[in-house]
């Protein structure tokens, strides 16, 4: 049982309905973190705008982006995020083996250099709150400056989303796949 009731579009003020429609327009429906955030519509709008950039307009290739989202979801223990993005990661071409290493918090030895960069940057930010010099250097070489900035911001953004999902105990949809 989620801690807040599902908001409805009809119950919103006209300005909030416009925010609702923007979110539904990019994401199909208002659900998950936005089922919480739409109780504070003036906040929901700018949160959604950051997410829209990172998910739909950013420079990271889809497989990198979704692997990074899965790694962030795993570190933030956000099961809702995981069940929403693990299928998207597969669809974007992330390797099932890489997703399983992220899910099981396994060693990165079995990953390609690119996957390793993505997963280690996210893990390091969550676990050590910094990036060691060697990891920073290899990530910069692998991704370039702009994509590395995006990756770091993405990890932080999915911490925000995970905090909202877990803080308000948003339910996993019926039929959600296995998480962790």
């Amino acid at each position, binding site marked *: 049982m989620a*801690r*807040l009731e599902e908001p409805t579009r009809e119950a919103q003020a006209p300005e909030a309905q416009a925010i609702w429609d923007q979110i539904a327009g990019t994401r199909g429906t208002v659900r998950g973190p936005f089922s*919480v*955030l739409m*109780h*504070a519509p*003036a*906040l929901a709008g*700018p*949160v959604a*705008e*950051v997410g*829209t*950039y*990172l998910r739909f*307009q*950013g*420079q990271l290739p889809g497989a990198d982006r979704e692997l990074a989202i899965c790694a962030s979801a795993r570190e*933030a*223990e*956000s099961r809702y995020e995981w069940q929403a993005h693990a299928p998207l990661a597969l669809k974007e071409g992330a390797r099932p083996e890489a997703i399983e290493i992220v899910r099981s918090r396994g060693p990165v030895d079995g990953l390609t250099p690119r996957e390793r960069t993505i997963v280690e*940057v996210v893990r390091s*930010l969550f676990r050590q*709150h*910094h*990036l060691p*010099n060697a990891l*920073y*250097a290899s990530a*910069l*070489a692998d991704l370039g*400056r*702009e994509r590395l*900035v*995006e990756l*770091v*911001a993405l*990890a*932080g*953004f999915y*911490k*925000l*989303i*995970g*905090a*909202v999902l*877990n*803080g*308000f*105990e948003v339910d996993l949809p019926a039929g959600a796949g296995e998480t962790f």
Partner: protein
Amino acid sequence: MAGSGQAAFGVQPRDALQVDEEVNVARLANPKREDLAPPSQEIWDRVWASRGAVGGPQSVLMYVPELGARVAELGDYIRFHGLLEATDRELAMLSTAREIEARYEWQAHEPLALKAGVRPEAIEVIRSRGATDALTARERVIIGVVRSLYREHRLSDDLFKAALGELGREKLIELVALAGQYGLLGFVLNGFEVDLPASASPTF
């Protein structure tokens, strides 16, 4: 990190001399307005207008101006237009900075917290990661929510109930999102080793 590392990473500070003379070298050079394309200069001007500077996390995020603009918009809401009282907000920012070890955030917000009226005793409990028993119920709720989101990635039923009773629904949503937003900014600051200003006081 040592200044000599910059070249090894392929980052050429456009104002290397100036940066070197200031303090320890950050991983990226501070961007300059005149180096940006006109649409990005508009973003720069908006960030400048709300904050009086393009510094700290925004100096990194300006390498991806559209992302910087949107993160700044969210920050504007939380800092300048949100429902949380200034004392609650600044207390929550310091708690987040402490949890993720973001020294830049700490030194930027500690003076703002004091100015907003946050009690020095509460700030010291956060800085030292001490027990919250001696704090007010309100301070305990704010610090407890942030710590729990970072340490356990959830809120226990008792804490959620206390926080909802103390803050109400919308302010509690803001508090949770604020903890996330300052986590994002802290990742940017620490990930790119943004320097503390030379005049910064000791943090933790």
